Every structure is written in C-alpha cells, then in structure tokens.
C-alpha cells in the first residue's frame, strides 16, 4: 500500500531537522575556517567573526544585546548554569529558590543539587491546564529567596506561562528571575525586555539549528558563577574551545526563526488546531493535555485512555509516523511524566500520553494521515487492554 511508505516526522519538540541554510552556515567551520576563535593569527579571524555574528543573530531573536549571550552546549547546560550559577553567586543574600512543578528535569534536578549544597527550594503548582498562577509564586517567595525559575513554555504540554506577570512580582521583591525558554524560543516571539526576566535559556535544536548548542541570555551586570571553569572564552563565564560550527548554525537558525516566525506560526497553528479538534472526534476517550489555546504553535498533546503511550508510538512508527510520549515506559527512568501528574491526571491516564511536535515541514495531509492511522492502532491496543475490558464491563454495569 502506498500510504504505508509515508514518513511523517511529528517530534519537533524532541529535536527539529537542521535547515539547509543552517547547515550551509556551518560547513565553512568544518572545512577551511576550522581555526580556534581565540587565536590571534588569521586562522582565528573568520571563526571569531562568525561567533560574533551569531551572537548578534541570537540576541536579535530575543531582543537582547550580543554581549549578554553566553553560548553553551545545550538547553540543559544553559539551565544548569542559570540555576546553579545564579544561586551560587547570590548565596550571601539567601539560599532559597522557587521553581514550578512542571519544569524540565534540567531545572528540577539542578534545584535538587542546590539542595545538596545547602539551599532549599519550593515547587509552585500548576492548574489543570499547566498554568502557573503568579500569586502562587508570590506566596512561595520568602525573605531568603534569591532566584525564581519558571519556564516560558512547557515542551510536554505546550502551555505558555505568564512570565511577564511573574516578572513583575520578582522585580517588586528584587529577586532574580530565570526562564527556561528552550521550548519557546524560535517558536513564539520571545523578548527579554518585554518579559522582564534576568536570564533566559534557549537551544538551537528547538528551532531548526544543530544539536549540541544552546545559549544563556544573561542581563548585563548580573553576576553568575561559571559552571565550566577554565579559559576565558565567553568572557570567562563558559570556558572551553567553542563549537564554532554549531554556534554559526545557531546564529543562522535564529535569524531564520526571527524572519519567518509569523508565517511559521500561522501555518502551524492552523494544522495544530485541526489536529486538536479532529483527534478527539476520531478516537473516543481522549484528553487534550495543556492549555487548549495558549500553547506552542506546533504543539498538540493528548492522553488516550486505557492504553499505554510507547506501544502507540511504536505502532505509529510502523506506519511511518514519529511521535513521542510521556508515559513511564517511554522514559528510561520508568516514571510517568511529572508534568502530566502535576496537571492532576491519574497514572493510568498519564500512561496514555501522546505528544505531537509539528514542524515547518508538516502539512494538513500529514495530520490527515495521522487521523487515518491512529484510530485502528488505538482500537487494537484497547482490544488487548485489561483496563479497557474493565471499563467496558463497568459501562455495561457489570
């Protein structure tokens, strides 16, 4: 069958493809311009210029200044650097940190590490759509709070958080505010000045740049302890020979994201809304997770009741569709997504998690294909699910 051969990548929240222009921007630094940007001879000149150009491109994407950009090796590194580095630099003022319950593990586990180092942290809850209430942040703030970290958008449920409102509170209380914008940057407009934050994490592979490059925007004058000690790259704040090719790619990807953002968003929102509307019509007992509207443009996430996510995604894979799940079985840690549980979903429902990360390549046809292949998969898995038979028996009043 022809449709059997179709390939539909719908996992752009895990990583995006690298755009051809981005790859082209990288190649010189894997060929003739291989030099180390720290070098004073001419082999250092082009790489150094490329780094500075990329710094400006990334700064422009988020409305910051180039000097405020610190290139890192991933969104995870940016988050670790922000949480640990800002807390350590502020520890004389206090040792308490506030995060939300749905932060990425790179934030949550950094907070846990701070705890080992003698800090304390408070976790702010979210509502059933995954939204943090700024007043909860206010309540969590203590006299010794030095840092608040709330993500701009969640990668698992797509919900966009009220960063601006939270920033008003942190400003009023004179506390540093970091936002993990790894899932958001490049996909929705992000402006550090508008948001009012002090630090912001981003990663290239979330907006069609290469994997292995991230950045931390750090407001001018904000003190931070480096995570990587050593040489004086990145103004002494992030030592180590720079991934010049990756950084050049990130710069190009940032520029493209800035220029094309409006068009990309319009297209994505159209097909995302179509998927969110249609899927629950084609499959019974499906819950949309995350905020129904105020979510990332390419993000559609569901819980399919009575069955488990990994088996769905494997069968979708057999049909050429690449998606992901927050089920315990898909996590190598074998725990259901803390994000889904924070929404108040019970474990058996969280296990049916399915997450579509739509990208610029996707079309309505791709969605139609999913809507065609998914229902029989669900049906088949339900037919073999003990939870589903129990449910049917209960319905019949047995």
């Amino acid at each position: 069958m022809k449709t059997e051969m179709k390939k539909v990548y719908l996992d752009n929240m895990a990583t995006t493809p690298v755009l051809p222009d981005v790859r082209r921007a990288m190649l010189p630094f894997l060929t003739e311009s291989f030099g180390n940007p720290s070098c004073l001879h001419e082999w250092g000149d082009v790489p150094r210029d490329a780094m500075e150009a990329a710094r400006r491109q990334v700064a422009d994407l988020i409305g910051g200044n180039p000097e405020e950009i610190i290139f890192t090796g991933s969104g995870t590194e940016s988050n670790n650097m922000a949480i640990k580095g800002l807390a350590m630099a502020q520890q004389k003022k206090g040792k308490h940190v506030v995060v939300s319950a749905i932060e990425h593990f790179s934030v949550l586990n950094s907070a846990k590490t701070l705890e080992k180092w003698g800090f304390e942290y408070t976790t702010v809850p979210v509502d059933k759509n995954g939204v943090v209430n700024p007043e909860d942040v206010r309540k969590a703030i203590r006299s010794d709070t030095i840092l608040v970290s709330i993500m701009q958008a969640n990668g698992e449920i797509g919900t966009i958080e009220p960063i601006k409102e939270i920033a008003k509170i942190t400003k009023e209380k004179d506390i540093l505010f970091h936002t993990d914008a790894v899932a958001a940057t490049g996909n929705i407009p992000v402006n550090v000045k508008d948001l009012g934050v002090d630090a912001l994490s981003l990663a290239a592979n979330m907006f069609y740049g290469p994997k292995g490059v991230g950045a931390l925007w750090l407001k001018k004058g904000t003190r931070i302890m480096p995570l990587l000690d050593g040489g004086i790259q990145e103004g002494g704040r992030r030592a180590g020979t720079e991934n010049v090719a990756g950084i050049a790619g990130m710069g190009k990807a940032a520029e493209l994201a800035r220029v094309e953002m409006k068009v990309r968003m319009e297209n994505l929102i159209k097909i995302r809304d179509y998927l969110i509307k249609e899927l629950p019509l084609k499959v019974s007992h499906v819950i949309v997770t995350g905020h129904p509207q105020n979510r990332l443009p390419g993000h559609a996430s569901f819980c399919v009741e009575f069955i488990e996510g990994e088996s769905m995604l494997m069968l979708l894979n057999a049909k050429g569709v690449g998606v992901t799940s927050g089920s315990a079985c898909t996590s190598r840690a074998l725990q259901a997504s803390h994000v889904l549980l924070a929404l108040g979903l019970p474990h058996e429902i969280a296990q049916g998690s399915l997450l579509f990360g739509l990208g610029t390549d996707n079309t309505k046809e791709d969605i139609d294909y999913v809507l065609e292949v998914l229902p029989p998969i669900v049906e088949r898995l339900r037919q073999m699910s003990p939870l589903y038979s129990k449910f049917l028996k209960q319905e019949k009043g047995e």
Partner: protein
Amino acid sequence: MPIYSEKVMDHFTNPRNVGEIENADGIGEVGNPVCGDMMTFYIKVKNNRLEDVKYKTFGCGAAIAVSSMVSELAKGKTLEEAMKITPESVVNELDGLPTVKHHCSNLGAQALHAAIENYKEKQKAGGQKNG
C-alpha cells in the same frame, strides 16, 4: 537500530493468543498503571497441562511481546514445566530486551505463575469446578 529485536517486534506487532478465556481455570493479574504495565493471564488446564493460555496487557512494546512469548512458551506445557518459565528464558527467547525493559519479562512470568497459583488454590478450595 531499533531498540527492540526483530523477534520482539514480531511478537509486539502480531501478538499471539491475545484475549480472555471465559470461565478460565486460573487468572493471574500483575502490575499497575503507576509502574506502567499491567498483565492479566487466563489459563485453561486439562490433565495438568495448559490447554490454553490467553492474556490482556496494558503496557509498552516489551510488555506486549513478553506476554505473547510467555503465552506461546506456556501453551501445552505441564503446570510444573510452566512454573519453570523464568524471566531470563523469556528474554532469551525474544533475542534480548533493553536493560530498562527487563522488568517487563518479570511481569510476564509472574502473571503466568499467578494464574497457575490461582488455579491451584481454586483446586484446593473447591475441587475441579471448571475442570
């Protein structure tokens, strides 16, 4: 390379013996949705042999493949032979499983054994009710 062997994929995409047995001689239920996998095994026993084995499984690809493999291995075996089916033997028959999925193989053997125990208890309690 996919994380699962071809054998696992085969049992996952074409699981054998799926279903329930009405008036089963023994039922074994293990797991819970917190850990991610649930299996219910149904057995039909005749002359101390597993005449039929069926199951329902909620879980990942490994859990489903393990259930299928266990049902195949068990079918036709004496109860004593079936009790000797170990997680390791299931993993071997499936040409291996990723390390993080080994607990699924435990569940499969456990569910089968639980069904057999259930059969034995019923036997003790009330004779060959559904013999």
